[in-house]
């Protein structure tokens, strides 16, 4: 029989380290708590040493990485809290509940900080829905986000939907949440004050999401608990799925915010992965205080739970608060009104002279001590691994990573592999799909803040306001982005380009990027090549964020993602938040207005390396340095972002009015705007055409490589004033080229593409329902 710690997922070395930290053998309960706290998911043991390289500071940052969420100052004594998290593996087992509890978990991270959650985004990655199992997963995931998000009352305003066979068995479900708080409501998860009460709020604790820990109670160990031998009981001890209850969470949000407003809690922390083990040890460790927890006081859903099960249960919709004894009655009153259960389950106790900040688990107050560990050894002292990094062989010619130098003509690599094979019409019809089938299942308008919802503009745009914070003219723009194809070929540059795209997306709505969170979805960290991808990706993100002055205020790492025995493509996801200082009308949206002119800002590199169109004609997955990605010129990109932010920002109400200098502009200079990314100019134009049911005739794009290149730093603008706009752009050092004019019912691009707008609309709209309206688990 295998050793307990191995079954619980700890290595022999890790087990030795536990013994060293404790100065003795851990008992079962302690072992269970170390095993969950030292898991990859909770301890970031493989990634932590790399994450430190990300820039996390700016004058606006109030709370950086390390807390439950990052907090950024947006002026007027208001701050925003943002965070993103993955729920990949639970979603593979039970897509509805996996996605639902993913949304629930990230929402708790936000209101833990004192912020009212007001927006979600859900970057999703699955295999192609043509395969029934993928359709089943995607449908379940979308219904889970919809079921939970809508009911808990947090609108889902954006997201992504990416298909690749590498996600067949391992869908990625990332969920981002944004909240708004008055700066003085900010609280941190730090326990303090000897004598203060530890109060558990919300749901009862059941056997949800208990992983390997249940084996401690299994018959195999023949110990005290496992004696009943009842078959149905042992079946019920199997690891079980977490079920979300959005109604409980909704009441928990209201109760937590009410408690914070009334200044009734000293500290508060959500319960997520590793349940009470995590929340108690983190609260104690961060606050450097000792804590006693009384198991008898924890409301249980099932009477016969063992101590390890109770302490590691991942039952959803629970929070842990530190409350002064005198305030508990008031806490009870608020909780009773809002129908939230509140139980005192422990106390902050005086430090023992020689062992500081002990976390003790007692059977009951004054009862038997079942576990006794320094809190920090659980929360902070998991081993950190500097895992082996193996660059792929042969690395070939190392690509100039991020070139800050401006582009010169000979910099243009002309990788037009496949360009002779690509049929424009055919490629477009294969690549286009309309995600509205997904986001129409999400409430994206709650709080009447949504100025641009999903699908309308390059970023979602929300009024900066909540039920308790009045709108003052400011708005937020949100975009989430990923580019696994690019990251597979060159994780460093690919990630930098992902950051660049996300920042440009918010700029297209007139916002200045002010913060970023990321979710690093990678394969098995014990594979040297995966660690290389991870490390490179972090460097690419770091460089891009430094150059664009965007602080990384939080993130999440999900490793061991693999399907059919193969690691997934490296999938770093970023979400950028932008701030619009003043808005009094809707930003230009994706679309076309007949009778106007289309202008391309930025230059196209004729390079199909890593592009979606080229991928259609390749049989294998993109591999490291299979070809050379398009360049990213950061100086230029930064200039482009600045220009677009000002151009759009001043049109929608900004003060820095670059439009003032422009006589002869009656009305909007920019009627529509869309960045060029997935599918290149071809897909950007199709999306614009479909949105307005208006055609265009493009004469300025001459080659397939131009049409499908996904080189960064480009934007298409629709305008009534082409001369004025091109002159203005050029004055700001932005190349601007007139590429065609709008009107009619066809999208025609020289001899490269010729399609009816109604046809592409129909095809793209039908893609998802065709496969998702009928789904089975297979």
């Amino acid at each position, binding site marked *: 029989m295998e050793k307990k710690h191995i079954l619980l997922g700890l290595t022999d070395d890790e087990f030795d380290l536990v013994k060293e930290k404790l100065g003795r053998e851990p008992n079962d309960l302690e072992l269970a708590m170390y095993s969950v706290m030292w898991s990859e998911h909770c301890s970031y043991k493989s990634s932590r040493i790399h994450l430190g390289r990300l820039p996390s500071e700016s004058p606006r940052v109030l709370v950086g990485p390390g807390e439950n969420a990052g907090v950024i100052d947006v002026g007027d004594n208001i701050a925003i809290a943002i965070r993103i998290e993955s729920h990949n593996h639970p979603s593979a087992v039970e897509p509805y509940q996996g996605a639902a509890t993913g949304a629930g978990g990230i929402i708790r991270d936000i209101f833990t900080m004192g912020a009212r959650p007001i927006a979600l985004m859900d970057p999703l990655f699955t295999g192609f829905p043509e395969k029934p199992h993928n359709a089943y997963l995607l449908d379940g995931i979308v*219904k889970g986000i*919809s*079921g939970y998000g*809508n*009911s808990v*009352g947090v609108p889902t305003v954006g997201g992504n939907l990416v298909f690749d066979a590498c996600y067949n068995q391992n869908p990625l479900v990332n969920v981002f949440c944004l909240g708004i708080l008055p700066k003085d409501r900010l609280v941190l998860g730090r326990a303090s004050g000897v004598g203060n009460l530890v109060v558990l709020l919300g749901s009862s604790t059941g056997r949800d999401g208990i992983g390997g820990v249940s084996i401690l109670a299994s018959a195999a160990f023949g110990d005290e608990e496992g004696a009943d031998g009842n078959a149905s009981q042992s079946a019920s001890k199997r690891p079980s799925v977490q079920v979300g*209850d*959005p*109604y*409980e969470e*909704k*009441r928990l949000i*209201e109760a937590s915010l009410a408690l914070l407003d009334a200044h009734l809690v000293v500290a508060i922390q959500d319960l997520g992965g590793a349940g009470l083990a995590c929340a108690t040890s983190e609260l104690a460790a961060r606050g450097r205080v000792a804590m006693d927890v009384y198991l008898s006081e924890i409301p249980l859903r099932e009477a016969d739970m063992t101590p390890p099960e109770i302490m590691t249960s991942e039952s959803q919709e629970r929070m842990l608060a530190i409350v002064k004894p005198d305030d508990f009655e008031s806490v009870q009153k608020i909780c009773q*009104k*809002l*129908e939230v259960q509140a139980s005192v389950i422990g106390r902050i106790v005086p430090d023992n002279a020689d062992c500081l900040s002990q976390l003790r688990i007692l059977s009951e107050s004054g009862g038997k001590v079942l576990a006794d560990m320094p809190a920090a050894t659980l929360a902070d002292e998991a081993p950190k691994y500097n895992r082996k990094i193996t660059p792929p062989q042969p690395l070939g010619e190392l690509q100039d990573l991020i070139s800050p130098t401006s582009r010169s003509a000979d910099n243009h690599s002309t990788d037009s592999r496949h360009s002779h094979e690509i049929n424009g019409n055919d490629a477009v019809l294969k690549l286009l799909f309309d995600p509205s089938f997904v*986001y*129409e*299942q*999400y*409430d*994206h*308008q*709650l*709080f*009447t803040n*949504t*100025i641009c919802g999903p699908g309308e503009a390059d970023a979602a745009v929300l*009024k900066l306001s909540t*039920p308790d914070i009045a709108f003052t003219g400011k708005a937020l723009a949100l975009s989430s982005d990923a580019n696994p194809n690019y990251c597979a070929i060159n994780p460093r540059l690919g990630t930098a380009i992902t950051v660049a795209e996300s920042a440009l997306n918010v700029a297209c709505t007139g916002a200045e990027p002010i913060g970023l969170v990321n979710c690093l979805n990678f394969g098995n960290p014990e594979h040297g090549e995966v660690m290389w991808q991870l490390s490179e990706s972090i460097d690419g993100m770091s460089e891009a964020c430094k150059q664009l002055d965007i602080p990384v205020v939080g993130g999440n790492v999900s490793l061991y993602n693999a399907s059919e025995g193969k690691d997934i493509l490296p999938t770093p996801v970023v979400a950028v938040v932008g701030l619009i200082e003043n*808005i*009094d*009308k*809707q930003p230009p949206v994706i679309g076309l207005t007949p009778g106007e002119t289309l202008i391309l800002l930025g230059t196209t590199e004729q390079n199909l390396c890593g592009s979606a169109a080229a991928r259609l004609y390749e049989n294998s997955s993109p591999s490291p340095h299979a070809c050379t990605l398009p360049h990213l010129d950061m100086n230029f990109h930064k200039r482009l972002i600045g220009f677009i932010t000002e151009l759009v920002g001043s049109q929608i109400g900004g003060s820095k009015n670059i439009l003032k200098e422009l006589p002869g502009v009656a009305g909007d200079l920019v009627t529509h705007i869309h960045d060029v990314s997935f599918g290149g100019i071809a897909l950007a134009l199709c999306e614009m055409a479909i949105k307005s049911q208006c055609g265009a005739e493009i004469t300025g794009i001459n080659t397939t490589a131009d049409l499908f290149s996904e080189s960064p730093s480009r934007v298409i603008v629709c305008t009534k004033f082409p001369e004025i706009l091109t002159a203005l752009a050029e004055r700001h050092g932005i190349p601007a080229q007139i590429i065609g004019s709008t009107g009619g019912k066809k999208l025609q691009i020289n001899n490269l593409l010729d399609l009816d707008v109604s046809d592409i609309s129909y095809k793209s709209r039908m893609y998802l329902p065709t496969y998702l*309206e009928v789904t089975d688990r297979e």
Partner: protein
Amino acid sequence: MDPIIKIVTFPGTNCEYDVLKQLNFLGADAELIWHQESDLGSCSGIVLPGGFAHGDYLRPGAIARFSPIMEQVIKFAESGGPVIGICNGFQVLTECGLLPGALSKNDRMRFICKTVSCVVKTSGSVLTSAAVAGQTLHLPINHGEGNYVCDEETLKYLRENNLAVLTYTEDVNGSVEQIAGISNKAGNVVGLMPHPERATDPLLGSTDGQVLLRSFIEASK
């Protein structure tokens, strides 16, 4: 006595502040009232707003109808006071019997959030008095269970009395006769699935919901 509109809030309700904000924006006095209250206080009109009262478990509105405040709401409605139920509020109104029929799951079994076209069928209700019969409005819908069902007899009753005050211009969720909203015979109790409060602020696009909220504010004076 100043006219005050009461917006009933159940645990799980989530559109109460949106309704409050937009009623204020249109110049009305309004305030929230918690479902456990058993006294309406000074009240000239009642809104049951959208959301997921009691999580919408079992059936939307099924549990909410037993809240203490509902007895008062029913009395107020029976005495002719203006009462509107938006989305989840409509579901509560049918569950508690103030309006006939029921709202079942959307026929495609999916939640729908989008803007749809509706036609005002009659101006004979507190929600449509300022509108013109035949007028088309673009209104956001946001529901998983908005598929209006009723038996033949009820349908006949609705038709004969012209009580389907608002209908969709196309089939969006399977509702019989594309019903989006109905009123009682007196016209003082109206339930509708679309969210007029989401189409009131010009910065958010459509302002077609204003005419409905204005009618209601007028009736609540």
